[in-house]
């Protein structure tokens, strides 16, 4: 007891948790402001949220090349965390930009929406900067609980309810695995600190082959693989993505995925480096399975949100390839890929947000017939995002895939890279079909309901710039990603 108190007192360093502190304070402030505002007035909340994200970005950048540690080795604001924080903040920012008018159109101008996004972003940031399994778990829960609410936010829509409930039940289920895994690892190493686990394992090589260690590693990874939406823990993804409000889906496809990758990378590379041969063979198989299931199932989808859900599974598979490679190129490739994916996927969802009618019944392939000619800007934007998702140069998606596959080849996983390329070839089919419908089908409607809301348009423009910048001059960001890994 005495020791614990001493420890807690010694390592107080608010700089290490400042970004999430700022974000949470803003979140609470917005929550209170909402209560005192008339119902349905949410624009100010969204504006304050944007400011909150900008402030947090500035605060977080203080940690770049100036690592902050604190709280008895529970938290670290290092380059790795900073890079991921930027990705989360970007995802949250684009989401909030496209949300305001959307929520009003769908008839749910709920002020709590924005604080919840901020809180889940803060949770994601804890996952990236947590250096202790418990901190990471805490972050995961903050992230998830906010998302459960957001997914089921449209209270009178059955699909949204279903999404919230399914996400909650299965999420809780996977968290059980995660905790069990953490418990086993604690049993092995006597600590939950990631770096200490690594030290213990290198000091006791005999424990590496111990079934308890391996089982702990496996069970813990399941918790994160669930959030990443890797097969076979991906089943929730299509239903939840389809049912949840579109901006929430957009956020879910980028933020939590990146956060789970961050946690997985820190734990595997720092803590479980001794088990590398075990987890590479695990991830090798799952990466292939995930890519194949995601791409093959996406072919059959006619609902675009659902199609993008499967595509998100497939992209998780590509990113896993980088972790299998486990070298500097592959791992920094994941950081790059997550950023690139945030740009392209949120861009695509922003187009869906604008293109949908109330209720979003029309977000199908048929519903996009001739869209490209009637709405040229959105058509071109969607085409760019889809090309990037396909991995056609010179877009961000290509550069990302390039780094990841180059990493895999460097580590000698040439077959994995080939399977990855083959999968991207399959993925062309369903992405391309959207372009076919947009440009090669006669328009059924005049799309007059599409109004170009400022927020969503701004987020689309940001996404286009990002996709092209990362595609044409990826060098600079990639350099930063390289500085960010351990």
């Amino acid at each position, binding site marked *: 007891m005495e020791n614990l108190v001493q420890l807690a007192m010694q390592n107080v360093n608010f700089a290490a948790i400042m970004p999430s502190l700022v974000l949470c304070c803003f979140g609470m402030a917005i929550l209170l402001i909402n209560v005192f505002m008339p119902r349905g007035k949410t624009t100010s909340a969204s504006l304050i949220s944007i400011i909150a994200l900008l402030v947090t970005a500035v605060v977080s950048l203080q940690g770049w090349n100036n690592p902050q540690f604190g709280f008895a080795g529970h938290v670290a604001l290092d380059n790795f965390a900073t890079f991921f924080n930027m990705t989360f903040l970007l995802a949250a920012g684009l989401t909030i930009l496209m949300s305001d008018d959307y929520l009003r159109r769908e008839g749910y101008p709920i002020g709590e929406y924005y604080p919840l996004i901020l809180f889940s972003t803060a949770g994601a940031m804890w996952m990236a900067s947590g250096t202790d399994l418990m901190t990471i778990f805490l972050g995961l829960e903050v992230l998830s609980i906010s998302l459960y609410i957001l997914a089921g936010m449209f209270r009178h829509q059955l699909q949204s309810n279903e999404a919230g409930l399914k996400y909650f039940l299965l999420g809780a289920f996977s968290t059980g695995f995660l905790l069990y895994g953490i418990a086993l690892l604690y049993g092995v190493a006597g600590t939950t600190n990631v770096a200490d686990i690594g030290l213990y394992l290198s000091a006791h090589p005999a424990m590496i082959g111990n079934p308890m260690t391996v089982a702990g590693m496996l069970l813990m990874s399941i918790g994160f693989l669930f959030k990443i939406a890797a*097969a076979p823990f991906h089943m929730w993804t299509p239903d939840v993505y389809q049912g949840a409000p579109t901006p929430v889906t957009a956020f879910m496809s980028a933020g939590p995925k990146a956060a789970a990758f961050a946690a997985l990378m820190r734990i595997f590379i720092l803590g479980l480096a001794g088990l590398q041969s075990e987890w590479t063979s695990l991830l090798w198989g799952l990466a292939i399975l995930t890519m194949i299931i995601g791409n093959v199932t996406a072919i059959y989808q006619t609902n675009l949100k659902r199609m993008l859900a499967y595509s998100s599974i497939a992209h998780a598979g590509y990113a896993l390839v980088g972790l299998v490679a486990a070298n500097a190129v592959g791992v920094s490739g994941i950081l790059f890929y997550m950023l690139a994916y945030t740009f392209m996927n949120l861009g695509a969802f922003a187009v869906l947000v604008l293109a949908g009618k109330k209720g979003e019944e029309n977000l199908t392939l048929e519903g996009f017939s001739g869209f490209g000619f009637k709405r040229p800007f959105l058509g071109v934007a969607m085409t760019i995002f889809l090309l990037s998702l396909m991995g056609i140069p010179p877009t961000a998606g290509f550069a990302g895939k390039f780094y990841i596959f180059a990493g895999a080849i460097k580590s000698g996983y040439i077959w994995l890279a080939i399977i990855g390329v083959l999968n991207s070839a399959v993925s062309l089919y369903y992405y391309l079909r959207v372009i076919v419908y947009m440009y090669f089908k006669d328009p059924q409607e005049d799309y007059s309901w599409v109004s170009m809301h400022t927020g969503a348009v701004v987020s689309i423009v940001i996404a286009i710039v990002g996709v092209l910048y990362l595609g044409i001059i990826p060098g600079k960001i990639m350099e930063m990603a390289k500085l960010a890994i351990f």
Partner: protein
Amino acid sequence: MHDYSLIWLIPFFPLVGFIVNGLLGKKIGNEKVIGAIGTLAIAASFVVSCKMFFQLLGDVEKTHEVILFSWMSVGQLQIDWGFLLDPLSALMIMVVTGVGSLIHLYSNGYMHGEEGFYRYFAYLNLFCFSMLMLVLGNNALVMFVGWEGVGLCSYLLIGYYFEKKSAGDAAKKAFVVNRVGDFGFLIGLFTLFWALGEHGVWTFQFTKIAENAHLLPAGGVVVTVATLCFFLGATGKSAQIPLYTWLPDAMEGPTPVSALIHAATMVTAGVYMIGRMNGLFSMAPDTMMVIAIVGAATAIFAASIGLAQNDIKRVLAYSTVSQLGYMFLAMGVGAFSAGIFHLMTHAFFKACLFLGSGSVIHAMHHAYHKAHLHDDPQDMRNMGGLAKKMPITFITFFISTLAISGIPGLSGFFSKDEILWWAFSSTRGGWILWLIGFIAAGMTAFYMFRLVFMTFFGKQKTDARAKDHVHESPLVITIPLMVLGLLALVGGWVGIPAALGGANRFEHFLAPVFEHAQETYGIHSQHSLHAFEFPLMGCSIGIALVGIFLAWIMYVKNPELPGRLVARFRWLHTAIFNKWFVDELYDGLFVNATKRLGRYFWKGFDVPVIDGIVNGVGWLVQGSSRVLRFIQNGQIHSYAMTMVLGMVVIVAVYVFK
């Protein structure tokens, strides 16, 4: 010291054209302004290309790399947005921008009044940009950018008339088939990247690949596999067996597009790629043999199909496939410069032929429109006697036909003959390859003259109501025709072989690119066979004349003969002993059998087998998709069950490992 730093302007101008027309085209609205922007963009890059080309001619140093800025870097691997100017790429940019400018000009007239005029020019400029990136890229990834870009533009332009279902289908087919090839290209690239990486060289840069290729064992598995994969990529883009099926369908696009993309430039990308990596290909004799065989087979196969077609553009499409086969034959036997030579001359005469056919179609369409008829303006059986109505079109078309048929003095003769000579005499060739090419040459002469005779000679078979509305096309269409016709006439004179007293300046110009590999791996024409050079030349002239003669007999002298032959085929068994019919019968048997073979290949092989394979793969993927969808049943307990099962399987794998 010459300065090449402005080379980036060459792809830059079309890009600007694309952006301006793409973004503002709808607002501009005025066809003349849009057309002028598009045409000037490519013309400007033609001017820059000329400057670069002539600068390079006078330069001692023949290989120049211009780096714009860094693209990606991974460890020692450095990938730049960089350009490579050497004789090969210099030649290619001349062809692309030169022919491209003419076709842009032509499009101003041809596409007049079409809906989405700005869209057309935007795509066309984007295509030129991508094609220039493809040929100028100093590393394989920039080339890949162009490679994908041209594929995309080709797709967009084939599907230009998207309201027609067939156009949409053709576009899709082209894209899907091309993806198979692109996949091969990428796998080849990965294999090469990894194999060189094993030796500590991580690079995509062409010059570095060429420098370090010797690290890999010549003729070894790695080189063979990598080059075969590259070749698969080439067969997709350049429409060779087994991936040629998309090209004839691609004729659904506007005719100038067929001329530029599906005849003169994009489809030659595969040939260019092999030329660019000739050092690597020379190291893999097995791959070279495959290339030569596939090239020769495609040449004769496509030519035989061309015999049986009635759609004017379809004949030209199969002819293109066949001529591309010649180019690959040349690459396969190590006659790199001959292949590129044929690429150039083919660009001239085939572009001229396509544009000429476009002019005819334009006139027919116009006439039918005036007469309120809905006949097919592309069917040759409705034409005939157009020579008098459309003299300029006819003369240029005729010159190009002579060129493709291999009549001495015209461009096609020199290039095709050089290929045939190399096929015969090269250390990597053989007389069978020559024989196949030789027969295909005869077929080429026949079907091309059949086309000319059916279209321009004889009586006009057009519906009487439309007959008088057929007129020569306006100047904007005929000027490109005249320029291309002239090039088809004289374009080959730069490569007159030494045997005919020429200097073969073309080969000397390209020598710095190809010489090294040819010398290192002993690829040359065998001296012991040089006595055959003149006789072989005579043979190929002879078979061309025979082909023309047969066509003349059947379609001019005796226009009802083909019909009679078909009719007579029924009582063939009684006539076969009749001496009086021997000549006609012989011709009939030969021609008709070939025709039937052609039709068999077209209907019997193409459709069920190739499409069957394509559909089969699709069915497999769709089937498994259906199964996966079944598991995704929406029941939350089955989702949880899947998770548990997945975990159990994973743990089991670890336990029993």
